[in-house]
C-alpha cells in the first residue's frame, strides 16, 4: 500500500538531489537544471497532498508553479547567454563581480 508518506519521502529525496547539485556543480546551466528539479519535487508534494486531502486546489497551484518556472527559465537562460557573451564563461566561481 502506497501512502502519502511514500510520495513525500520521494519528493524530499528529489529535492535533496537538487540541493546537492546547486552546491556541487559550477556550470550555471546545470545549476539552473537542478533548480528545476527542486521545483518539480515541490510540485510532486503539492499533488500528493492534494490527492490525500481530496482537494483540487493543489493541482491549480502546480499549474501556477509551472507558469512561473517557464517565465523564470526564459529570463534566466537569457541572462546566462548575456553573461557568456560578455565574459566567455558561465562557471559561477569566475563570475564574481559583486564579490568586491
Amino acid at each position, binding site marked *: *500500500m*502506497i501512502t*502519502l508518506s*511514500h*510520495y*513525500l*519521502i*520521494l*519528493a*524530499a*529525496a*528529489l529535492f*535533496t*538531489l*537538487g*540541493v*546537492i547539485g546547486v*552546491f*556541487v556543480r*559550477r*556550470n550555471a*546551466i*546545470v545549476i539552473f*537544471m*537542478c533548480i*528545476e*528539479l527542486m521545483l*518539480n519535487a515541490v*510540485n*510532486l508534494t503539492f*499533488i*500528493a497532498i*492534494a*490527492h490525500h*486531502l*481530496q*482537494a*483540487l*486546489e493543489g*493541482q*491549480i497551484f*502546480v*499549474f*501556477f508553479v*509551472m*507558469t*512561473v518556472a*517557464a*517565465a523564470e*527559465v*526564459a529570463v534566466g*537562460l*537569457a*541572462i*546566462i*547567454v*548575456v553573461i*557568456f557573451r560578455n565574459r566567455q*564563461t558561465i*562557471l559561477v566561481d569566475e563570475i564574481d563581480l559583486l564579490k568586491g
Partner: protein
Amino acid sequence: MEAVFFYLFGGLALISAALVVFQRKPVHSAMALIFTFFCIAALYLLLEAEFIAVIQVLVYAGAIMVLFLFVIMLLNLEKEQEVEAGGDRFRKWLGGFMAVLAFLLLTPVWALQMLPAFKGTFPPEKIQEVGNTVWVARLLFTDYLLPFEVASILLLAAIVGAVFFAMKRS
C-alpha cells in the same frame, strides 16, 4: 499494482535525477532531466492528476527542456567540462552537509498527523463524473481567474525581458 508502478517510476526518477547532478556534460544532464520529468508525469498519473501530468510532459519535458538544449548548443562549453572534473573539496563537503540537513528537515513523516483530518470538496466520485481536466478548468476560470490573468501578464513580462536581454547592443 500501484506499488509496482510507484517503485518503478520513483526509482527511475531518483536514478535519473542523480544522473542530472553527477553527469559531467551538460547535454547528458539535460537528457537525464527530461527522463526525470517523464517519470514524475507518470507519478502524477498515479495520483489521478491527469491534466497536470500532460502539462508536465508538454511544458517541462517539451518547452522548457528545448530552451535548455538550445542554450547548451549555442554556447561553446568545452572549458567548463574540464574545470568541472577537478572538484573543490570544501564545496563537496558543504554540498553533502546541506543535503543531509535538507533531507532530515524534509522527511518528518510523523508530522503528518498534524495534517487536518477533514477532507476537501473533491472526493474521487465527484471527479470521476466529468473528469479531472473539467474540474481543473472550472476552478481555474472561476475561483482562480485573477491569478490566471496575472500569470499571463507574468509570461508577457518574461518574453519582453528575454528579448531585451538577448538583443545585441550596438
